[in-house]
Protein backbone atom coordinates (compact mmCIF):
# COMPACT_ATOMS: atom_id res chain seq x y z
CA UNK A 1 0.00 0.00 0.00
CA UNK A 2 1.25 3.48 -0.86
CA UNK A 3 -0.13 6.52 0.94
CA UNK A 4 0.38 10.13 -0.09
CA UNK A 5 -0.47 12.46 2.79
CA UNK A 6 -0.69 16.16 1.98
CA UNK A 7 2.30 15.83 -0.33
CA UNK A 8 3.53 19.03 -2.00
CA UNK A 9 6.50 19.49 -4.31
CA UNK A 10 7.76 22.94 -5.11
CA UNK A 11 10.91 23.11 -7.28
CA UNK A 12 13.64 25.68 -6.66
CA UNK A 13 12.33 27.84 -9.50
CA UNK A 14 8.97 28.09 -7.73
CA UNK A 15 7.05 25.64 -9.92
CA UNK A 16 4.49 23.77 -7.86
CA UNK A 17 4.48 20.36 -9.50
CA UNK A 18 2.34 18.56 -6.91
CA UNK A 19 -0.10 20.37 -4.66
CA UNK A 20 -1.33 18.83 -1.38
CA UNK A 21 -1.77 15.34 -2.80
CA UNK A 22 -3.81 12.94 -0.66
CA UNK A 23 -4.22 9.52 -2.17
CA UNK A 24 -3.97 5.86 -1.21
CA UNK A 25 -2.84 3.19 -3.64
CA UNK A 26 -4.29 -0.17 -2.57
CA UNK A 27 -1.94 -3.14 -2.35
CA UNK A 28 -2.15 -5.59 -5.22
CA UNK A 29 -3.83 -3.22 -7.67
CA UNK A 30 -2.86 -1.27 -10.73
CA UNK A 31 -3.43 2.42 -10.07
CA UNK A 32 -3.05 4.78 -12.99
CA UNK A 33 -2.03 8.43 -12.76
CA UNK A 34 -3.32 10.20 -15.84
CA UNK A 35 -3.44 13.83 -16.89
CA UNK A 36 -2.15 16.33 -19.42
CA UNK A 37 1.55 17.02 -19.88
CA UNK A 38 3.20 18.82 -16.97
CA UNK A 39 0.48 18.09 -14.42
CA UNK A 40 2.86 16.43 -11.96
CA UNK A 41 2.40 12.71 -12.64
CA UNK A 42 6.09 11.94 -12.98
CA UNK A 43 6.95 14.08 -9.98
CA UNK A 44 4.36 12.27 -7.83
CA UNK A 45 5.67 8.91 -8.97
CA UNK A 46 9.34 9.77 -8.42
CA UNK A 47 8.66 10.89 -4.88
CA UNK A 48 7.70 7.30 -4.01
CA UNK A 49 11.22 5.97 -4.65
CA UNK A 50 12.85 9.23 -3.59
CA UNK A 51 14.19 10.15 -7.01
CA UNK A 52 12.63 13.43 -5.85
CA UNK A 53 11.99 14.38 -2.23
CA UNK A 54 8.76 16.19 -1.35
CA UNK A 55 8.81 19.77 -0.06
CA UNK A 56 6.23 18.85 2.56
CA UNK A 57 3.93 15.97 3.43
CA UNK A 58 4.55 12.28 3.96
CA UNK A 59 4.67 9.25 1.70
CA UNK A 60 4.27 5.83 3.29
CA UNK A 61 5.03 2.55 1.56
CA UNK A 62 3.50 -0.31 3.54
CA UNK A 63 3.20 2.00 6.49
CA UNK A 64 6.82 3.09 6.45
CA UNK A 65 7.81 6.71 5.80
CA UNK A 66 10.04 6.65 2.70
CA UNK A 67 12.12 9.53 4.06
CA UNK A 68 13.29 7.24 6.86
CA UNK A 69 14.95 4.82 4.41
CA UNK A 70 18.15 5.71 2.55
CA UNK A 71 17.36 6.14 -1.16
CA UNK A 72 19.46 3.33 -2.70
CA UNK A 73 18.09 0.77 -0.25
CA UNK A 74 14.55 2.00 -0.79
CA UNK A 75 14.90 1.85 -4.59
CA UNK A 76 16.18 -1.72 -4.59
CA UNK A 77 12.85 -2.72 -3.08
CA UNK A 78 10.77 -0.80 -5.64
CA UNK A 79 10.72 -1.66 -9.33
CA UNK A 80 10.99 1.35 -11.65
CA UNK A 81 10.27 1.37 -15.37
CA UNK A 82 10.63 4.51 -17.51
CA UNK A 83 9.52 5.60 -20.94
CA UNK A 84 12.80 5.17 -22.82
CA UNK A 85 13.47 1.91 -20.91
CA UNK A 86 16.78 3.41 -19.71
CA UNK A 87 18.68 0.17 -20.23
CA UNK A 88 22.43 0.21 -19.66
CA UNK A 89 23.89 0.23 -23.17
CA UNK A 90 27.20 -1.29 -22.05
CA UNK A 91 25.64 -4.36 -20.47
CA UNK A 92 24.01 -7.36 -22.11
CA UNK A 93 20.27 -7.80 -21.76
CA UNK A 94 20.83 -10.55 -19.20
CA UNK A 95 23.15 -8.41 -17.08
CA UNK A 96 20.73 -5.50 -17.30
CA UNK A 97 18.01 -7.67 -15.82
CA UNK A 98 20.38 -9.04 -13.18
CA UNK A 99 21.34 -5.54 -11.99
CA UNK A 100 19.21 -5.27 -8.86
CA UNK A 101 19.79 -8.82 -7.60
CA UNK A 102 23.54 -8.20 -7.96
CA UNK A 103 23.26 -4.87 -6.13
CA UNK A 104 21.39 -6.66 -3.39
CA UNK A 105 24.28 -9.06 -2.97
CA UNK A 106 23.09 -12.19 -4.79
CA UNK A 107 25.87 -14.27 -6.30
CA UNK A 108 26.33 -13.87 -10.03
CA UNK A 109 25.14 -17.30 -11.07
CA UNK A 110 21.91 -17.05 -9.11
CA UNK A 111 21.28 -13.51 -10.39
CA UNK A 112 21.78 -14.60 -14.00
CA UNK A 113 19.52 -17.60 -13.59
CA UNK A 114 16.83 -15.37 -12.17
CA UNK A 115 17.33 -12.92 -15.03
CA UNK A 116 16.89 -15.66 -17.63
CA UNK A 117 13.70 -16.76 -15.90
CA UNK A 118 12.40 -13.19 -16.01
CA UNK A 119 13.05 -12.81 -19.71
CA UNK A 120 10.69 -15.69 -20.22
CA UNK A 121 8.13 -14.24 -17.85
CA UNK A 122 8.00 -11.01 -19.87
CA UNK A 123 7.73 -12.97 -23.08
CA UNK A 124 11.25 -12.72 -24.49
CA UNK A 125 13.27 -15.60 -25.89
CA UNK A 126 16.14 -16.20 -23.41
CA UNK A 127 18.46 -16.11 -26.43
CA UNK A 128 18.00 -12.33 -26.33
CA UNK A 129 19.99 -12.36 -23.08
CA UNK A 130 23.28 -12.22 -24.94
CA UNK A 131 22.35 -9.18 -26.99
CA UNK A 132 23.04 -5.56 -26.14
CA UNK A 133 20.17 -3.09 -25.80
CA UNK A 134 21.05 -1.37 -29.09
CA UNK A 135 20.24 -4.65 -30.84
CA UNK A 136 16.63 -4.73 -29.65
CA UNK A 137 13.48 -3.06 -30.94
CA UNK A 138 11.76 -0.45 -28.80
CA UNK A 139 9.08 -2.91 -27.69
CA UNK A 140 11.67 -5.53 -26.77
CA UNK A 141 13.69 -2.96 -24.81
CA UNK A 142 10.55 -2.07 -22.91
CA UNK A 143 10.01 -5.72 -21.97
CA UNK A 144 13.60 -5.90 -20.74
CA UNK A 145 12.93 -2.74 -18.70
CA UNK A 146 9.96 -4.46 -17.07
CA UNK A 147 12.01 -7.61 -16.46
CA UNK A 148 14.76 -5.55 -14.82
CA UNK A 149 12.25 -3.87 -12.54
CA UNK A 150 10.77 -7.24 -11.53
CA UNK A 151 14.09 -9.03 -11.01
CA UNK A 152 14.36 -8.72 -7.25
CA UNK A 153 10.63 -9.45 -6.90
CA UNK A 154 9.75 -6.07 -5.37
CA UNK A 155 6.21 -5.74 -4.01
CA UNK A 156 5.83 -2.28 -5.58
CA UNK A 157 6.30 -1.32 -9.23
CA UNK A 158 6.45 2.26 -10.54
CA UNK A 159 5.92 2.65 -14.28
CA UNK A 160 6.31 6.03 -15.97
CA UNK A 161 4.77 6.02 -19.46
CA UNK A 162 6.47 2.69 -20.13
CA UNK A 163 4.62 2.02 -23.39
CA UNK A 164 4.31 5.46 -24.94
CA UNK A 165 7.37 5.22 -27.18
CA UNK A 166 6.16 2.16 -29.12
CA UNK A 167 3.65 1.86 -31.95
CA UNK A 168 -0.05 1.31 -31.12
CA UNK A 169 -0.11 -2.39 -32.01
CA UNK A 170 2.95 -3.22 -29.91
CA UNK A 171 1.58 -1.01 -27.14
CA UNK A 172 -1.65 -2.97 -27.01
CA UNK A 173 0.33 -6.20 -26.82
CA UNK A 174 2.43 -4.88 -23.95
CA UNK A 175 -0.68 -3.71 -22.11
CA UNK A 176 -2.29 -7.16 -22.39
CA UNK A 177 0.96 -8.70 -21.23
CA UNK A 178 1.06 -6.42 -18.20
CA UNK A 179 -2.49 -7.40 -17.25
CA UNK A 180 -1.59 -11.07 -17.61
CA UNK A 181 1.57 -10.59 -15.52
CA UNK A 182 -0.31 -8.72 -12.85
CA UNK A 183 -2.88 -11.51 -12.60
CA UNK A 184 0.02 -13.82 -11.72
CA UNK A 185 2.25 -11.56 -9.67
CA UNK A 186 -0.24 -9.41 -7.78
CA UNK A 187 2.06 -6.38 -7.37
CA UNK A 188 1.15 -2.91 -6.21
CA UNK A 189 1.61 -0.97 -9.43
CA UNK A 190 1.51 2.76 -10.02
CA UNK A 191 1.30 3.41 -13.75
CA UNK A 192 1.69 6.88 -15.26
CA UNK A 193 0.29 7.74 -18.68
CA UNK A 194 -1.26 10.67 -20.50
CA UNK A 195 -3.36 8.34 -22.63
CA UNK A 196 -6.87 8.06 -21.19
CA UNK A 197 -7.60 4.84 -23.10
CA UNK A 198 -4.55 3.20 -21.59
CA UNK A 199 -5.59 4.45 -18.16
CA UNK A 200 -9.11 3.04 -18.47
CA UNK A 201 -7.84 -0.26 -19.81
CA UNK A 202 -5.18 -0.91 -17.18
CA UNK A 203 -6.34 0.90 -14.08
CA UNK A 204 -8.38 -0.65 -11.33
CA UNK A 205 -8.35 2.87 -9.95
CA UNK A 206 -7.50 5.99 -11.91
CA UNK A 207 -6.22 9.29 -10.54
CA UNK A 208 -6.85 12.19 -12.93
CA UNK A 209 -4.41 15.05 -12.38
CA UNK A 210 -5.10 18.60 -13.41
CA UNK A 211 -2.44 21.11 -14.44
CA UNK A 212 -0.85 22.70 -11.38
CA UNK A 213 -0.47 19.42 -9.57
CA UNK A 214 -4.08 19.05 -8.34
CA UNK A 215 -5.77 15.70 -8.05
CA UNK A 216 -9.06 16.23 -9.91
CA UNK A 217 -10.64 12.84 -9.33
CA UNK A 218 -9.64 9.46 -7.99
CA UNK A 219 -12.10 6.73 -8.89
CA UNK A 220 -12.77 3.45 -10.65
CA UNK A 221 -12.74 3.79 -14.47
CA UNK A 222 -16.48 3.25 -14.86
CA UNK A 223 -17.21 5.95 -12.35
CA UNK A 224 -14.84 8.35 -14.03
CA UNK A 225 -16.83 7.94 -17.23
CA UNK A 226 -20.31 8.07 -15.80
CA UNK A 227 -19.73 10.64 -13.09
CA UNK A 228 -16.81 12.95 -13.84
CA UNK A 229 -16.09 15.20 -10.86
CA UNK A 230 -15.80 18.39 -12.91
CA UNK A 231 -15.65 19.78 -16.43
CA UNK A 232 -11.93 19.17 -16.64
CA UNK A 233 -12.33 15.45 -16.00
CA UNK A 234 -15.35 15.30 -18.31
CA UNK A 235 -13.43 16.82 -21.20
CA UNK A 236 -10.31 14.83 -20.41
CA UNK A 237 -12.06 11.46 -20.52
CA UNK A 238 -13.42 12.49 -23.89
CA UNK A 239 -16.53 13.06 -25.96
CA UNK A 240 -17.53 9.45 -26.44
CA UNK A 241 -17.43 8.57 -22.77
CA UNK A 242 -21.03 7.32 -22.90
CA UNK A 243 -19.92 4.71 -25.37
CA UNK A 244 -16.79 3.93 -23.33
CA UNK A 245 -18.96 3.33 -20.25
CA UNK A 246 -20.26 0.22 -21.99
CA UNK A 247 -16.77 -1.27 -21.57
CA UNK A 248 -17.44 -1.66 -17.88
CA UNK A 249 -20.87 -3.29 -18.14
CA UNK A 250 -21.31 -7.02 -18.39
CA UNK A 251 -25.08 -7.13 -18.60
CA UNK A 252 -26.79 -9.96 -20.49
CA UNK A 253 -27.77 -9.47 -24.12
CA UNK A 254 -30.05 -12.01 -25.74
CA UNK A 255 -28.27 -14.12 -28.33
CA UNK A 256 -30.29 -14.98 -31.42
CA UNK A 257 -29.80 -17.92 -33.76
CA UNK A 258 -28.38 -17.21 -37.24
CA UNK A 259 -28.57 -19.03 -40.54
CA UNK A 260 -25.15 -20.40 -41.48
CA UNK A 261 -23.67 -22.03 -44.52
CA UNK A 262 -20.32 -23.70 -45.16
CA UNK A 263 -17.91 -22.80 -47.94
CA UNK A 264 -18.45 -24.99 -51.01
CA UNK A 265 -22.00 -25.93 -49.96
CA UNK A 266 -24.86 -25.49 -52.45
CA UNK A 267 -27.56 -23.28 -50.90
CA UNK A 268 -30.45 -21.03 -51.74
CA UNK A 269 -29.91 -17.77 -49.92
CA UNK A 270 -32.97 -15.68 -49.11
CA UNK A 271 -31.80 -13.62 -46.18
CA UNK A 272 -28.47 -12.61 -44.55
CA UNK A 273 -26.50 -15.82 -44.11
CA UNK A 274 -23.28 -16.21 -42.15
CA UNK A 275 -20.65 -18.30 -43.91
CA UNK A 276 -18.43 -20.37 -41.63
CA UNK A 277 -15.43 -22.68 -42.09
CA UNK A 278 -15.06 -26.31 -40.97
CA UNK A 279 -14.54 -25.28 -37.34
CA UNK A 280 -17.63 -23.06 -37.43
CA UNK A 281 -15.49 -19.89 -37.44
CA UNK A 282 -17.10 -16.94 -39.27
CA UNK A 283 -15.69 -16.08 -42.72
CA UNK A 284 -18.14 -13.46 -44.00
CA UNK A 285 -21.74 -12.79 -44.99
CA UNK A 286 -23.95 -13.56 -47.96
CA UNK A 287 -26.95 -11.34 -48.60
CA UNK A 288 -30.01 -12.58 -50.51
CA UNK A 289 -29.26 -13.94 -54.05
CA UNK A 290 -31.42 -15.49 -56.80
CA UNK A 291 -31.54 -19.25 -56.98
CA UNK A 292 -29.14 -21.90 -55.74
CA UNK A 293 -25.41 -21.14 -55.66
CA UNK A 294 -22.24 -22.85 -54.55
CA UNK A 295 -20.77 -20.73 -51.69
CA UNK A 296 -17.35 -19.51 -52.65
CA UNK A 297 -14.85 -17.09 -51.10
CA UNK A 298 -15.65 -14.57 -53.89
CA UNK A 299 -19.26 -13.99 -52.89
CA UNK A 300 -18.49 -13.09 -49.29
CA UNK A 301 -19.10 -9.66 -47.79
CA UNK A 302 -16.52 -8.98 -45.08
CA UNK A 303 -17.86 -9.16 -41.55
CA UNK A 304 -17.58 -6.72 -38.66
CA UNK A 305 -15.88 -7.05 -35.28
CA UNK A 306 -16.57 -10.16 -33.24
CA UNK A 307 -18.26 -10.18 -29.84
CA UNK A 308 -16.66 -12.45 -27.26
CA UNK A 309 -19.49 -12.21 -24.74
CA UNK A 310 -17.64 -9.98 -22.30
CA UNK A 311 -18.69 -6.32 -22.39
CA UNK A 312 -21.63 -4.37 -23.74
CA UNK A 313 -19.21 -2.24 -25.73
CA UNK A 314 -18.06 -5.30 -27.64
CA UNK A 315 -21.65 -6.35 -28.32
CA UNK A 316 -22.68 -2.93 -29.60
CA UNK A 317 -19.59 -2.56 -31.75
CA UNK A 318 -20.11 -5.99 -33.30
CA UNK A 319 -23.70 -5.09 -34.20
CA UNK A 320 -22.80 -1.64 -35.53
CA UNK A 321 -19.88 -2.84 -37.64
CA UNK A 322 -21.65 -5.84 -39.17
CA UNK A 323 -23.00 -5.44 -42.74
CA UNK A 324 -26.12 -7.37 -41.66
CA UNK A 325 -26.55 -5.26 -38.48
CA UNK A 326 -26.22 -8.58 -36.64
CA UNK A 327 -23.21 -8.75 -34.32
CA UNK A 328 -21.53 -12.14 -34.45
CA UNK A 329 -20.82 -13.68 -31.06
CA UNK A 330 -18.08 -16.31 -30.83
CA UNK A 331 -16.86 -18.64 -28.09
CA UNK A 332 -13.29 -19.07 -26.82
CA UNK A 333 -12.40 -21.20 -29.85
CA UNK A 334 -13.72 -18.59 -32.27
CA UNK A 335 -16.76 -20.69 -33.24
CA UNK A 336 -20.06 -18.92 -33.91
CA UNK A 337 -22.52 -18.93 -30.99
CA UNK A 338 -25.21 -16.63 -32.43
CA UNK A 339 -25.84 -12.99 -33.13
CA UNK A 340 -26.71 -9.89 -31.06
CA UNK A 341 -28.69 -6.80 -32.03
CA UNK A 342 -28.00 -3.15 -31.27
CA UNK A 343 -31.49 -2.53 -29.81
CA UNK A 344 -30.91 -5.30 -27.31
CA UNK A 345 -27.71 -3.62 -26.15
CA UNK A 346 -29.51 -0.34 -25.59
CA UNK A 347 -32.25 -2.16 -23.68
CA UNK A 348 -29.64 -3.94 -21.58
CA UNK A 349 -28.05 -0.60 -20.80
CA UNK A 350 -31.36 0.84 -19.67
CA UNK A 351 -31.90 -2.23 -17.49
CA UNK A 352 -28.45 -1.93 -15.93
CA UNK A 353 -29.08 1.73 -15.24
CA UNK A 354 -32.42 0.98 -13.58
CA UNK A 355 -30.70 -1.65 -11.46
CA UNK A 356 -28.16 0.99 -10.35
CA UNK A 357 -25.25 -0.83 -12.01
CA UNK A 358 -24.19 2.27 -13.90
CA UNK A 359 -22.53 4.63 -11.43
CA UNK A 360 -24.04 8.09 -11.42
Amino acid sequence: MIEFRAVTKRFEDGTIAVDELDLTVEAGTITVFVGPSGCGKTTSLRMVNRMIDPTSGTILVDGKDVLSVDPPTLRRGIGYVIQQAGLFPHRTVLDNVATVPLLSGWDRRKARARAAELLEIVGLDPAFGKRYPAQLSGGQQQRVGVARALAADPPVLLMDEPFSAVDPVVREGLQDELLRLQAELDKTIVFVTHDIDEALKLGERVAVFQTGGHLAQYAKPAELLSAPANDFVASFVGRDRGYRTLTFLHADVPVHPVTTAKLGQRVTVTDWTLVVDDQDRPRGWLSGVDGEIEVSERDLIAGGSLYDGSTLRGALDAALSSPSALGVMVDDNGAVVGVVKADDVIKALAKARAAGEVPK
Partner: protein
Amino acid sequence: MGGWLFDPAHWSGPTGIPVRLLEHLGYTLMTLLIAAVIAIPLGAFVGHTGKGGFVVVGLSNALRALPTTAVLILVVLWAGLGDFPVYVALVLLAIPPIMAGAYAGIRAVDPVTVDAARGVGMRESGVLLKVEIPNALPLIYGGFRGAALQVVATATIAAYTGAGGLGRLVFDGLALQEFGQMLAGAVLVALLAVLVDLGFAGLQRLTVSPGLRPVGTGGKT
Protein backbone atom coordinates in the same frame (compact mmCIF):
# COMPACT_ATOMS: atom_id res chain seq x y z
CA MET B 1 69.71 8.47 -46.64
CA GLY B 2 68.46 5.47 -44.67
CA GLY B 3 72.05 4.31 -44.26
CA TRP B 4 72.41 5.53 -40.71
CA LEU B 5 69.24 3.80 -39.59
CA PHE B 6 70.20 0.42 -41.01
CA ASP B 7 73.86 0.43 -39.94
CA PRO B 8 74.11 -2.51 -37.48
CA ALA B 9 76.60 -0.54 -35.39
CA HIS B 10 73.79 1.81 -34.36
CA TRP B 11 71.60 -1.03 -33.12
CA SER B 12 73.72 -2.11 -30.15
CA GLY B 13 75.41 -0.76 -27.08
CA PRO B 14 74.17 1.55 -24.33
CA THR B 15 73.40 4.36 -26.81
CA GLY B 16 72.03 2.08 -29.53
CA ILE B 17 68.65 2.46 -31.14
CA PRO B 18 66.91 -0.24 -29.02
CA VAL B 19 67.96 1.51 -25.82
CA ARG B 20 66.73 4.88 -27.12
CA LEU B 21 63.46 3.32 -28.22
CA LEU B 22 62.91 1.78 -24.81
CA GLU B 23 63.79 5.05 -23.07
CA HIS B 24 61.33 6.89 -25.29
CA LEU B 25 58.62 4.31 -24.68
CA GLY B 26 59.38 4.47 -20.96
CA TYR B 27 58.93 8.26 -20.85
CA THR B 28 55.72 7.94 -22.79
CA LEU B 29 54.06 5.20 -20.76
CA MET B 30 55.12 6.59 -17.39
CA THR B 31 53.90 10.07 -18.39
CA LEU B 32 50.56 8.71 -19.56
CA LEU B 33 50.13 6.71 -16.39
CA ILE B 34 50.79 9.70 -14.14
CA ALA B 35 48.63 12.02 -16.25
CA ALA B 36 45.77 9.50 -16.37
CA VAL B 37 45.86 8.99 -12.61
CA ILE B 38 45.53 12.76 -12.14
CA ALA B 39 43.28 13.73 -15.05
CA ILE B 40 40.73 10.91 -15.35
CA PRO B 41 39.42 11.06 -11.76
CA LEU B 42 39.36 14.86 -11.93
CA GLY B 43 37.55 15.02 -15.26
CA ALA B 44 35.18 12.20 -14.33
CA PHE B 45 34.32 13.66 -10.97
CA VAL B 46 33.61 17.10 -12.37
CA GLY B 47 31.60 15.50 -15.17
CA HIS B 48 29.62 13.46 -12.65
CA THR B 49 28.73 16.33 -10.34
CA GLY B 50 28.25 18.76 -13.22
CA LYS B 51 29.80 21.45 -11.08
CA GLY B 52 33.03 23.27 -11.98
CA GLY B 53 32.93 22.40 -15.67
CA PHE B 54 34.30 25.81 -16.55
CA VAL B 55 37.34 25.11 -14.33
CA VAL B 56 38.12 21.95 -16.28
CA VAL B 57 37.70 23.68 -19.64
CA GLY B 58 39.65 26.75 -18.53
CA LEU B 59 42.46 24.73 -16.98
CA SER B 60 42.70 22.55 -20.08
CA ASN B 61 42.95 25.56 -22.37
CA ALA B 62 45.51 27.31 -20.18
CA LEU B 63 47.69 24.18 -20.00
CA ARG B 64 47.41 23.69 -23.77
CA ALA B 65 48.99 27.11 -24.34
CA LEU B 66 51.96 26.27 -22.11
CA PRO B 67 55.14 25.76 -24.19
CA THR B 68 56.59 22.40 -23.18
CA THR B 69 60.16 23.51 -23.92
CA ALA B 70 59.89 26.37 -21.43
CA VAL B 71 58.47 24.13 -18.73
CA LEU B 72 61.23 21.61 -19.30
CA ILE B 73 63.94 24.26 -19.08
CA LEU B 74 62.46 25.98 -16.05
CA VAL B 75 62.23 22.73 -14.11
CA VAL B 76 65.78 21.81 -15.11
CA LEU B 77 67.06 25.19 -13.89
CA TRP B 78 65.16 24.75 -10.67
CA ALA B 79 65.63 21.06 -9.91
CA GLY B 80 68.65 20.06 -11.97
CA LEU B 81 69.07 17.64 -14.88
CA GLY B 82 67.44 14.22 -14.97
CA ASP B 83 64.16 12.56 -15.76
CA PHE B 84 62.09 14.59 -13.31
CA PRO B 85 61.87 17.76 -15.49
CA VAL B 86 60.96 15.59 -18.47
CA TYR B 87 58.02 14.10 -16.58
CA VAL B 88 56.81 17.45 -15.30
CA ALA B 89 56.80 18.92 -18.81
CA LEU B 90 55.22 15.90 -20.47
CA VAL B 91 52.60 15.30 -17.78
CA LEU B 92 51.46 18.92 -18.09
CA LEU B 93 51.19 18.32 -21.82
CA ALA B 94 49.15 15.13 -21.42
CA ILE B 95 46.70 16.31 -18.77
CA PRO B 96 44.50 18.64 -20.88
CA PRO B 97 43.38 16.17 -23.55
CA ILE B 98 42.91 13.33 -21.05
CA MET B 99 40.95 15.48 -18.63
CA ALA B 100 38.83 16.98 -21.41
CA GLY B 101 38.08 13.48 -22.75
CA ALA B 102 37.01 12.18 -19.34
CA TYR B 103 34.87 15.24 -18.67
CA ALA B 104 33.21 15.20 -22.09
CA GLY B 105 32.76 11.43 -21.91
CA ILE B 106 30.87 11.52 -18.63
CA ARG B 107 28.77 14.50 -19.73
CA ALA B 108 27.83 12.69 -22.92
CA VAL B 109 26.31 9.68 -21.13
CA ASP B 110 22.55 9.68 -21.75
CA PRO B 111 20.87 11.27 -18.69
CA VAL B 112 18.12 8.65 -18.97
CA THR B 113 20.69 5.91 -18.42
CA VAL B 114 22.09 7.72 -15.38
CA ASP B 115 18.58 8.28 -14.05
CA ALA B 116 17.84 4.58 -14.47
CA ALA B 117 21.04 3.72 -12.59
CA ARG B 118 19.84 5.75 -9.61
CA GLY B 119 16.34 4.34 -10.07
CA VAL B 120 17.48 0.74 -9.63
CA GLY B 121 19.19 1.73 -6.40
CA MET B 122 22.85 2.33 -7.23
CA ARG B 123 24.77 4.60 -4.88
CA GLU B 124 26.56 7.62 -6.39
CA SER B 125 29.86 5.71 -6.47
CA GLY B 126 28.13 2.88 -8.31
CA VAL B 127 26.51 5.26 -10.77
CA LEU B 128 29.95 6.71 -11.59
CA LEU B 129 31.97 3.49 -11.64
CA LYS B 130 29.48 0.98 -13.02
CA VAL B 131 27.51 3.12 -15.45
CA GLU B 132 29.03 6.50 -16.29
CA ILE B 133 32.68 5.50 -16.72
CA PRO B 134 32.01 2.33 -18.76
CA ASN B 135 29.75 4.34 -21.06
CA ALA B 136 32.25 7.20 -21.28
CA LEU B 137 35.15 4.90 -22.21
CA PRO B 138 35.10 5.59 -25.97
CA LEU B 139 35.59 9.33 -25.37
CA ILE B 140 38.04 8.70 -22.52
CA TYR B 141 40.13 6.63 -24.90
CA GLY B 142 39.81 9.36 -27.52
CA GLY B 143 41.40 11.93 -25.20
CA PHE B 144 43.96 9.45 -23.96
CA ARG B 145 45.12 8.38 -27.41
CA GLY B 146 45.36 12.01 -28.50
CA ALA B 147 47.56 12.66 -25.49
CA ALA B 148 49.66 9.59 -26.27
CA LEU B 149 50.43 10.85 -29.80
CA GLN B 150 51.44 14.25 -28.46
CA VAL B 151 53.60 12.78 -25.73
CA VAL B 152 55.46 10.42 -28.08
CA ALA B 153 56.21 13.31 -30.44
CA THR B 154 57.13 15.81 -27.75
CA ALA B 155 59.26 13.45 -25.64
CA THR B 156 61.82 14.12 -28.37
CA ILE B 157 62.75 17.47 -26.87
CA ALA B 158 63.74 15.80 -23.59
CA ALA B 159 67.10 15.23 -25.25
CA TYR B 160 67.69 18.98 -25.43
CA THR B 161 68.49 18.98 -21.74
CA GLY B 162 70.55 15.84 -22.02
CA ALA B 163 67.91 13.25 -21.16
CA GLY B 164 67.52 10.06 -23.24
CA GLY B 165 64.99 8.84 -25.75
CA LEU B 166 64.88 9.05 -29.54
CA GLY B 167 65.40 12.80 -29.34
CA ARG B 168 69.07 12.01 -28.78
CA LEU B 169 69.35 10.92 -32.42
CA VAL B 170 67.84 14.22 -33.55
CA PHE B 171 69.98 16.48 -31.35
CA ASP B 172 73.18 14.48 -31.73
CA GLY B 173 72.61 14.40 -35.47
CA LEU B 174 72.11 18.14 -35.43
CA ALA B 175 75.31 18.72 -33.47
CA LEU B 176 77.30 16.47 -35.81
CA GLN B 177 75.50 17.75 -38.93
CA GLU B 178 74.63 14.11 -39.58
CA PHE B 179 71.41 14.19 -41.51
CA GLY B 180 70.89 10.42 -41.58
CA GLN B 181 70.82 10.26 -37.82
CA MET B 182 68.28 13.10 -37.55
CA LEU B 183 66.08 11.44 -40.13
CA ALA B 184 66.35 8.10 -38.34
CA GLY B 185 65.21 9.80 -35.14
CA ALA B 186 62.22 11.36 -36.84
CA VAL B 187 61.16 8.16 -38.58
CA LEU B 188 61.52 6.08 -35.42
CA VAL B 189 59.44 8.52 -33.38
CA ALA B 190 56.66 8.49 -35.96
CA LEU B 191 56.81 4.70 -36.08
CA LEU B 192 56.68 4.45 -32.31
CA ALA B 193 53.68 6.79 -32.25
CA VAL B 194 51.82 4.55 -34.68
CA LEU B 195 52.68 1.44 -32.66
CA VAL B 196 51.67 3.02 -29.35
CA ASP B 197 48.38 4.11 -30.88
CA LEU B 198 47.77 0.61 -32.24
CA GLY B 199 48.46 -0.79 -28.80
CA PHE B 200 45.93 1.49 -27.17
CA ALA B 201 43.43 0.80 -29.95
CA GLY B 202 43.76 -2.90 -29.05
CA LEU B 203 43.32 -2.14 -25.37
CA GLN B 204 40.23 -0.10 -26.23
CA ARG B 205 38.71 -3.00 -28.13
CA LEU B 206 39.29 -5.28 -25.18
CA THR B 207 37.89 -2.98 -22.52
CA VAL B 208 35.02 -1.13 -24.17
CA SER B 209 31.69 -2.97 -24.08
CA PRO B 210 30.58 -4.26 -27.51
CA GLY B 211 27.20 -2.72 -26.66
CA LEU B 212 28.73 0.71 -27.21
CA ARG B 213 29.90 0.05 -30.75
CA PRO B 214 27.86 1.59 -33.53
CA VAL B 215 24.59 -0.31 -33.97
CA GLY B 216 24.79 -3.46 -36.00
CA THR B 217 28.44 -4.27 -35.39
CA GLY B 218 28.35 -5.36 -31.77
CA GLY B 219 28.24 -9.05 -31.00
CA LYS B 220 26.10 -11.69 -32.65
CA THR B 221 22.55 -11.05 -33.64
